């Protein structure tokens, strides 16, 4: 096992460097192919997203993969890596395994727990596979990384709470209404933010949309885009009772929705809940409206607080995710190490057995006519010596399985017993 990873990410390098090092998806397969065709490289994968560029390889035992990767990047980008050298981090062996697990599980992402990275790693993996750059240790590690990411997603709430204002609005709506199917959204005052929130709500299942704006043309325009109904601003209050969710962002200097009006709305709605998302500054909805039962008013700061709380929630979940990853790394390393060890043990046994058989044959003549009992005794004697000699190295190899130092031990045993040639 000789794993190496060289990379930059949003923490180590500014965007100018990341974009310079970026390898677009269309050229990914070709680039990986170039990488693994370099002498000494067995497998390779390139993960290139807007926040990171990472090249991972599995190489022949004695090969210095880092400089090969550096050369590859230099060739690929036709530029001297020198001035950017210090932005790169280099990881080896079990650190590579751990890093890939953390990246896939979105613990290394700029927004903790964001879901895109898993898809991006799947793409990188697929690109590497299509050019035959995945066939051994690295293949197993990346496969495992994807499985671990799925486990983290399943067993922790790392990705569950909304960490952007518009998604927080959707999340709150779901906490109030359960599903959003059949719910009506009323956009009051068409702006970029309300448009975005409405888009998220619609994609979460909300069905009807009403749009009102001081300039009616803009309302018509937005309503058409969302397959909704425009409402003239003068008729705002008549239509308000239809709405389950009101997203308000007018430029009005004072509040346009007050407690009295909402009380009337509630009786018209038979107390069905209403959710006001007030993203206007100054605010459109009188904060006193929140005192009414079955009415929930969130202004832009409130949404911000929810996002902050959700981020803290994710950080707490990340602690558990790290524990899962630590366990999985140990398990994977153990398996990889035993994969290294088992062939060595077999080769060692085979080697000694062959020596024994050769020597037995050589002394056949000198031993003369032995009875079958005597022959068995000699056989047992030589076998006994062989097993005694083997006992030490085999125990050592097995006990060290999973430890990084074992790689050196395996190499040493290969060397002194002349295995593998």
């Amino acid at each position, binding site marked *: 096992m000789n794993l190496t990873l060289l990379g930059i990410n949003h923490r180590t390098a500014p965007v100018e460097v990341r974009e310079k090092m970026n390898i677009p998806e269309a050229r990914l397969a070709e680039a990986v192919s170039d990488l693994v065709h370099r002498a000494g490289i067995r497998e390779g994968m390139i993960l290139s997203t807007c926040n990171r560029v990472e090249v991972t390889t599995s190489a022949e035992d004695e090969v210095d993969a880092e400089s090969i990767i550096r050369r590859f990047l230099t060739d690929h980008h036709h530029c001297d890596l020198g001035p950017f050298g210090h932005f790169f981090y280099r990881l080896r062996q079990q650190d590579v395994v751990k890093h890939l697990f953390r990246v896939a599980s979105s613990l290394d992402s700029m927004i903790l727990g964001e879901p895109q990275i898993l898809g991006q790693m799947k793409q990188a993996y697929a690109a590497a596979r299509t050019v035959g750059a995945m066939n051994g240790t690295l293949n197993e590690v990346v496969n495992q990384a994807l499985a671990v990411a799925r486990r983290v997603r*399943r*067993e*922790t*709430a790392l990705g*569950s*709470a909304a960490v952007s204002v518009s998604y927080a609005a959707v999340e*709150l709506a*779901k*906490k*109030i*209404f*359960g*599903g959003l199917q059949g719910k009506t959204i009323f956009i009051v005052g068409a702006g970029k933010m309300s448009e975005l929130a409405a888009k998220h709500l619609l994609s979460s299942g909300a069905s009807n949309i009403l749009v009102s704006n001081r300039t009616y043309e803009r309302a018509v325009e937005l309503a058409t885009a969302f397959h909704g109904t425009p409402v003239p601003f003068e008729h705002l209050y008549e239509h308000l009772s239809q709405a389950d969710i009101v997203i308000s962002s007018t430029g009005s200097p004072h509040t346009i929705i007050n407690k009295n009006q909402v009380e009337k709305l509630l009786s018209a709605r*038979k*107390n*069905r*809940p209403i959710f006001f998302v007030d993203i206007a500054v100054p605010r459109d909805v009188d904060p006193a409206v*929140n005192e009414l*039962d*079955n009415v*929930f008013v*969130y202004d832009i700061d*409130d949404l911000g*607080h*929810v996002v902050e*709380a*959700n981020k803290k*929630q994710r950080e707490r*979940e990340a602690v*558990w995710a790290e524990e899962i990853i630590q366990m999985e790394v140990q398990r994977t390393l153990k398996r990889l190490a035993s994969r290294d060890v088992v062939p060595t043990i077999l080769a060692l046994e085979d080697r000694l057995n062959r020596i024994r058989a050769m020597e037995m044959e050589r002394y056949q003549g000198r031993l003369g006519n032995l009875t079958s009992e005597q022959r068995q005794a000699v056989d047992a004697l030589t076998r006994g010596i062989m097993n005694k000699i083997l006992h030490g190295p085999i125990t050592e190899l097995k006990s060290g399985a999973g430890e990084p130092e074992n790689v050196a031990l395996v190499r040493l045993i290969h060397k002194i017993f002349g295995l593998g040639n």
Partner: protein
Amino acid sequence: MHDVCVWMALSFYALGILLIVPSVVRRRPSLSLASLGALGIGLAAHAGALAIEAARLHRLPVTDVRSALSFYAFLVTLAFFFVYLRYRIVSLGLFMLPLVFLLTLISALRPPGSFDSSAFRGGWLLVHISSIFLGYTALFLTFVAAVMYLIQERELKSKQPRGFYYRLPSLKVCEELYYRSLVLGLPFLSLGILTGFVWASRTWKGPWELDPKILASLLTWLIYLVLFSNCVSGVWRGRRAAYFAIVGFAAILVTFVGISLLSGEHGYIPKLRG
């Protein structure tokens, strides 16, 4: 054998509760499954205990305090499982299961009921007691749903999401659970109370209408009728309805536990015996 089953049920309930707390607090689905497994074993053992008791008494084991508590605990656990299968709300267990454990424990610690009365062999009375218990089970669920609603509503109104915000179901689901269990519980409660009146008027001598427990259950019934009609008409929704459901369940507790100590007939020491 009966005692073995009861203690087994009790230990598995305890294990289930011990597992469900971290499964909700730390949100670990794998722990939830383990907890449900333990509760399932507990429920099976509990069913076994009730079956043995029923075989011994040749009737539904609900006529003395010990078996009545045990039977009620069994129904509540069963209800938890039904709701879980439909809604997958693990946090519900936090609110429902401690009661199960407490009732089963009290029941296990009590000596077995020694009296037997011909009165309890009558069909009316069994219908009365089992409908009352089914009603109480459903209305306990209404109570729990109301409590969960109030907590979640507070989280949403406070605009500072804390632990419960992430762990309790949406207001919609709380309301649905609340409403459905109310719709299910009220007919059983009504049937139980009516059969009780019929039985009492036939069997008891003297002014049965003035028995404190009968008056209390009448009051409870009225509370739930008012709640039901106001919910159906949409006048009460959300917080107000939830508070009233809590009042209703408090009335049940007073009727079930409190008045039992005062009422001759319902103190489980039948007057008729003398």
